[in-house]
């Protein structure tokens, strides 16, 4: 499909928005289910004598489990599209099936993980399973919907050479990789150890000593996702949105026709990367000035 500049930019903006929502919800889904690296602390806590009411599903690495639900959603969507379903309906139904599959994995994973900790006296709370699993499914449904919609746009409108399930798989893996790299740090390094002074650094000896009391009552995963939705989730969403937007923006805005034009888009891409490096330096400078140093020069030398 040939698009003019305005329509191309509109499509790109829509893709960026979908990716932003998907990234944000992907991270929040991993927080509410406690997946990926921070889950090592949730898993370790009962071994240290800290029993907790936090959901404990680590189906696999976050990108892979997220890719699984996204590709399931994409496959069901394609089947329904072939059966002449209306695209939006097909994507909704596909996303629902993908989310249910993840919900099944989450349930078995939580039960299995807690069962393996019997000798540490960690109970399997049925109310936690009843309340949290639908939340995981709900978060994942939105992720699947956004990722499959993104794949649908790329396949049907932009004529990408890959099929919808494959594009959904790649974006699912990428969303998981970003969620695991960005938002999970907010959950793992801040929320799980919120009783420590902000900016003091986390000693390795604190491993497993996670916070178990909430703002009111005992903390559960719904409390965690409430907190992470304030910063970690949106930060992940912005990261995935930026990836989708910036990787396509140069080609969209310049509308290249010849190889020389395409080379110009690559140069613009490299300039964007250079600006991101400078951005990181500014953040680094700000953080060092605000929180550090932790040691005096003599102490470091000794």
């Amino acid at each position, binding site marked *: 499909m040939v698009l003019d500049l305005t329509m191309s930019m509109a499509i790109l903006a829509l893709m960026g928005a979908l990716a932003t929502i998907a990234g944000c919800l992907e991270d929040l889904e991993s927080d509410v289910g406690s997946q990926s690296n921070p889950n090592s602390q949730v898993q370790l806590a009962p071994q240290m004598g800290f029993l907790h009411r936090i959901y404990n599903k680590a189906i696999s690495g976050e990108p892979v489990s997220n890719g699984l639900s996204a590709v399931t959603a994409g496959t069901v969507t394609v089947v329904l599209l072939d059966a002449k379903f209306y695209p939006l309906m097909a994507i909704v139904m596909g996303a629902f099936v993908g989310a249910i599959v993840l919900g099944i994995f989450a349930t078995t994973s939580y039960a299995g993980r807690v069962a393996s900790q019997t000798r540490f006296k960690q109970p399997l709370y049925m109310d936690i399973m009843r309340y949290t699993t639908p939340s995981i499914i709900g978060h994942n449904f939105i992720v699947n919907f956004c990722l499959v919609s993104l794949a649908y746009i790329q396949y049907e409108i932009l004529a990408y050479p890959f099929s919808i399930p494959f594009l959904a798989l790649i974006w699912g893996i990428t969303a998981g990789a970003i969620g695991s790299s*960005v938002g999970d740090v907010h959950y793992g390094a801040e929320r799980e150890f919120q009783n420590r002074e902000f900016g003091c650094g986390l000693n390795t000896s604190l491993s497993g000593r996670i916070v178990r009391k909430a703002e009111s009552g005992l903390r559960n995963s719904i409390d965690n996702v409430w907190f992470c939705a304030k910063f970690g989730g949106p930060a992940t969403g912005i*990261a995935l949105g930026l990836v989708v937007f910036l990787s396509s923006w140069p080609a969209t805005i310049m509308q290249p026709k010849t190889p020389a034009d395409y*080379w110009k888009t690559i140069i613009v891409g490299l300039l964007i990367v250079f600006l*991101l490096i400078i951005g990181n330096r500014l953040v680094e400078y700000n953080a060092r000035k605000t*929180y550090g140093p932790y040691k005096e020069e003599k102490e470091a030398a000794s």
Partner: protein
Amino acid sequence: MVSLLDPVILQSILLIAISGTLICIAVHFIPVGGAPAAMAQATGIGTGTVELAAGSGLVGLITASYMYSSLPDPQSQMLLILASGAMGSMIMIACTMLMGSMVYAFGVGVPFASAQVKNDPITGDRQDLYMSKGTQGQGLPTVCFVSGVIGGMLGGIGGALIYYVLIGLYSQSAIIGTSAAAVAGVFTVGVFYVNSVIPSYGVGGTIEGFHDPKFRRVLPKDAFTSFCVSIMCGIVAVLIAGGM
């Protein structure tokens, strides 16, 4: 019927082996701190090597494949396709690291510090004074960020090269010619994962980038292993196109 001794086929297998090795080298450049980094107890990105390398490489694969399908004569524009793969991967890894840095700086509240060098080789900033007690550094200092971007570039080039070789091969195949892009894409993902896993054993889950002493220690062995494994991947990839 495919002859493995055909010069074109041999060249394809060699290019796939080089691509796999590039991906393996790329993983060593990407600063990953694994679970400790997710708790701000180690320098780097708070995830595993495989997750991040594959995630960034796959974005490169999408940009490279789109470039391939957009160009009128893609087989004569190898450099452009590789560059687009590199650009996609670099943007993915740079955006991820920048937002990760923001979470470290504003969400967790830790200054960035490398445990492997006293001064950042790029900015010259002291690192040891900013390392909090009982940790192996935290956050993403500039040297790690630049190393990660280089890693993204190499990974993107590797992924794009595999795709370029395979789609050229598969599009002439009588068996899978009609779905050449799909098969080439899936196989590229496979080779990516294979070559992302191999360095994980060498680096032991965490590496800070090219300034980490571990980089020089494990890179030659990992790259050689990856080259050998990728040759096998290349042979299998070629046989898919036409059988033995």
